[in-house]
C-alpha cells in the first residue's frame, strides 16, 4: 500500500512541477540562440534609444543573428540588385550622408528621378509604417518595393531579382546557412531588414543633455529646445519623450509643401478615384504613382483615399537632421532655416492644411536658436560615418 502511494506522489510531483517546465522549454523552441544574438546587438543600442523597445520590435519570423545581418549588409550595398548594376539601397540611403543622398529627389537607374526625397534608414525600424505615405507596414515589405520600381532599381519582377542573386554561389550558400533554404524574395527582404535594424541613431549631444549633462548643448540650443516645446509648436507632431524618442508622432499631416506648385490637384484625385472604381489601383500602382510628379503630392491619400489625408505626409524624424537635407517630402526646402521660416509663416495655405499649423511669429533670434537646437540632434556615430569611418 505504502509503495503505491509513494509512486502516486512521485507521479503527481512530476506532472505538477517538472512536466510543465519541460514542455514550456520544448514549446519555446530554441530561445537560447536568439537571446544570445540579441544581447550582442543590445550592446550597440545607443543610450537614447530604449533597448527593450528595440528588442520588442524584432519580428518573431525574422530574429536577429550576426550572419543574417552580415548577409543583409552585403545585399544592401549590392548594386547588382538593380537592372544595370548601378543602384543599390546604399545609393539613395548612403551611410556617409546619414543614410540619405543629399539630393532633392532620389535618382535611380539611368538617371531616372522620382518625386520624393529619400528618408533615412536610421531608426526606421521604429516607424509604424514605412515611406512618406505609409504604404508599407514592415521594413521587410518596404525593402521589396524599390527593387521593382521603374525609377529606382528597375528590375522587371521579384523573380528576376531572385534569379540574379541565385547566380552567385556564395549568396546561395549563405542563404542556406542563414535561412535553411533557397534564395527567395522574402528572405532577401528579411536579411536587408535585419541589417537595417542595426542602424540606429541615439547618441547625440541632445541625448546626453536629456540624460542629465546640462553642458552637453549650448545656451542658444537650450533656448531652442524651450521654443521647440512651446512657442514654435514643434513638439506635438515631432513628438519626443522617454518612451518614444524619435521626434515624430508617426502621423500624417498636410503642411502645404508642394501645394502651390500642383495646379491640377482635383484632376489627379478624380483619376485616382477612377482607378479605385476600375480596380486598377494595386500595390504596385500605388508604389509607382507615389514617385510620379503630381500624383506624389496626394500623399497619404494615395493609400487611404480619405479626404483628410489629401496632401498629408508622415512627420519626419529630426534626428541627424543637420545631415539629411534637403528637406520635406519633395526636397523643396534646402536649409533648416528655410524650413523654420516655412512653418513660421503658417505653412502653405490649402483646403486641407493641418489644423495644428498656424503663424508662429518667431523672431530672428528664436529661429537661430531653433536651428542651433536641431543641430544638437546629430548622433556621434553618424557624424563619424560622415567623416569616413567604416560601417
Amino acid at each position, binding site marked *: 500500500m505504502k509503495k503505491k502511494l509513494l509512486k502516486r506522489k512521485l507521479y503527481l510531483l512530476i506532472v505538477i512541477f517538472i512536466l510543465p517546465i519541460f514542455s514550456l522549454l520544448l514549446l519555446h523552441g530554441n530561445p537560447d540562440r536568439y537571446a544570445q544574438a540579441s544581447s550582442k546587438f543590445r550592446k550597440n543600442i545607443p543610450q537614447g534609444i530604449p533597448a527593450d523597445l528595440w528588442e520588442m520590435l524584432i519580428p518573431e519570423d525574422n530574429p536577429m543573428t550576426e550572419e543574417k545581418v552580415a548577409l543583409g549588409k552585403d545585399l544592401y550595398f549590392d548594386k547588382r540588385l538593380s537592372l544595370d548594376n548601378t543602384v543599390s539601397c546604399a545609393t539613395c540611403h548612403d551611410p556617409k550622408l546619414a543614410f540619405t543622398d543629399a539630393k532633392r529627389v532620389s535618382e535611380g537607374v539611368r538617371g531616372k528621378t522620382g518625386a520624393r526625397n529619400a528618408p533615412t534608414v536610421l531608426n526606421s525600424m521604429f516607424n509604424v509604417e514605412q515611406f512618406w505615405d505609409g504604404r508599407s507596414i514592415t521594413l521587410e515589405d518596404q525593402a521589396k518595393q524599390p527593387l521593382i520600381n521603374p525609377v529606382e532599381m528597375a528590375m522587371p519582377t521579384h523573380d528576376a531579382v531572385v534569379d540574379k542573386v541565385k547566380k552567385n554561389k556564395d549568396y546561395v550558400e549563405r542563404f542556406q546557412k542563414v535561412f535553411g533554404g533557397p534564395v527567395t524574395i522574402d528572405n532577401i527582404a528579411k536579411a536587408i531588414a535585419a541589417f537595417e535594424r542595426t542602424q540606429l541613431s541615439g547618441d547625440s549631444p541632445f541625448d546626453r543633455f536629456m540624460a542629465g549633462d546640462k553642458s552637453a548643448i549650448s545656451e542658444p540650443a537650450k533656448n531652442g529646445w524651450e521654443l521647440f516645446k512651446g512657442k514654435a509648436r514643434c513638439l506635438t507632431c515631432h513628438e519626443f519623450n522617454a518612451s518614444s524618442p524619435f521626434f515624430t508622432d508617426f502621423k500624417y499631416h498636410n503642411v502645404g509643401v508642394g501645394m*502651390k506648385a500642383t495646379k491640377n490637384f482635383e484632376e489627379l484625385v478624380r483619376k485616382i*478615384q477612377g482607378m479605385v472604381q476600375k480596380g486598377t489601383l494595386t500595390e504596385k500602382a500605388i508604389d509607382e504613382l507615389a514617385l510620379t510628379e503630381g500624383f506624389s503630392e496626394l500623399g497619404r491619400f494615395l493609400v487611404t483615399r480619405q*479626404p*483628410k489625408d489629401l496632401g498629408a505626409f508622415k512627420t519626419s524624424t529630426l534626428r541627424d537632421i543637420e545631415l539629411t537635407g534637403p528637406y520635406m517630402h519633395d526636397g523643396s526646402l534646402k536649409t533648416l532655416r528655410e524650413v523654420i521660416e516655412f512653418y513660421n509663416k503658417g505653412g502653405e*495655405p*490649402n483646403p486641407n*492644411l493641418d*489644423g495644428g499649423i498656424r503663424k508662429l511669429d518667431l*523672431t530672428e533670434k528664436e529661429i537661430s536658436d531653433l536651428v542651433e537646437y536641431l543641430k544638437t540632434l546629430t548622433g556621434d556615430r553618424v557624424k563619424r560615418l560622415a567623416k569616413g569611418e567604416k560601417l
Partner: protein
Amino acid sequence: MLPLKWKKSDEKYKKERAEFFNAIKHLDRRTFLKVAGMAGAVFASKGLIPPHSFQLIDMVHAKTDEKPGFRFAYISDTHLYERKLNERFVRAMMRAVQDVNALDPQPDFVFFGGDLAQLGQAGELELGKQILSEVKAPIRMMVGEHDWFLDMGEKWQQLFGPSQYSFDHKGVHFIVLMSVNEKDFWTERKMTPMERMMTVAGLDNALQSRFEVGKEGQEWLKKDLAKVPKDKPIVVFSHSPLYKYYKPWNFWTEDAEAVQKMLFPYQSVTVIHGHTHQMLTNRIKNIHFHGMLSTAWPWPYPPEGLPKLTVQFDRPDPFDEADGNGNGTVDVYQKGYVDKHYNLWSKNPIKVTKTYLESWGKESIPPAPVFATY
C-alpha cells in the same frame, strides 16, 4: 501690462488681422478665393493660386434599393465674432463655403443651421451674410439663439426674413422652426440687451430659460401641418434638438413632447438640428433626429442623456483647430428619411444612413472610434 516683446508681436498680429478684414470687405469671387486660402496669412498676397477644395465621390450607399431623390448641403453654427476680436471662425466659415461650392454635382440648396453670429451683433450678422453670398447654390436660413437675443431678432429678420417658414421641394415638405425661444428672464432682472445676450450665450447658468418652440410657434406649426398629407415626407429644421438631451447646456427643447406629438402622425419625419456641435443621432418612434456639425468648435458629449443610436466622434485634438468641426450634406429619399453625411475636417467622413435608423441601429452601422479602456 504685457512685456514689451509680447506687445510688439501683439500689435503686428492686430495689424495683419486688420488687413485681412479689409481684404474681405471687397469680396468678389477671385478675391474671396484668394483670401479664403490664406489659412494663416492674413494679408492679401499677390499671385496666390486659388486653392482647390472638393468633395469626393461618395461610394457608400445605404442598404436599400431606393436611391436618394436629391441632396442638400449644410453649414451651421459659425459663431462669428466682431472683426477685431477673432478671425479664426471667419476662416473656418470660408472653408465651409469653399467645400459646398466645390460639390459636384452641386446640391439643390445650402441650409444654414443657425448661430451665424456669436453675440448677435449687427456687424457679425452682416459679415456672415457677406460670406454666405459667395455660396453658389440657393441658401435657406435658420436662426439660432446667438443671433436672436441681443435685439430679439430684429437685425436677423431684416437681413434674412421670417424666423419660421416652410417650403416644398421635390415632393418633400420642409419646415424651418424657431425653436430657441425663451421665457422672459431678463425684464425683472432689468438686464441690458447685451447682458441678456451674454446670459443666453453661456452654459450651465440657471438664469436663462430652457429653449422652446413656444405656444405661438406650436400654433403656427399646427396650421402649417394641416396642409400636409400624412404620407408626404417631412424634414424639420430646428436649431435646438426638439428632444430633451442635456438640460444644463440647453441641449433641450422644453415643449419637445408637444411638438413631437404633432409630428408622429406623419409617415416619415426627419429633424435636422444645430446647436450641439457634434455628431448626434436619435430616433423617437418614427422621427429621425440628426445633429449638424459646427464650423467653429466641437462640444464634448455631456455626462448623461446621450441617445443610444449616436455614434460618437473621436475626441477632438485641442492642438488642431479644425478637429471636430466641419460641414456636410444630406441625401433625401423620395419616400422620406435621409442619409446624413458628416464632412469632418480632420477625421474621416462618416455617413449615418436611413437604414441605420430604420433598423434601430442593427444594420449599416457607421464606423465608430475605438475608445480604449485603461
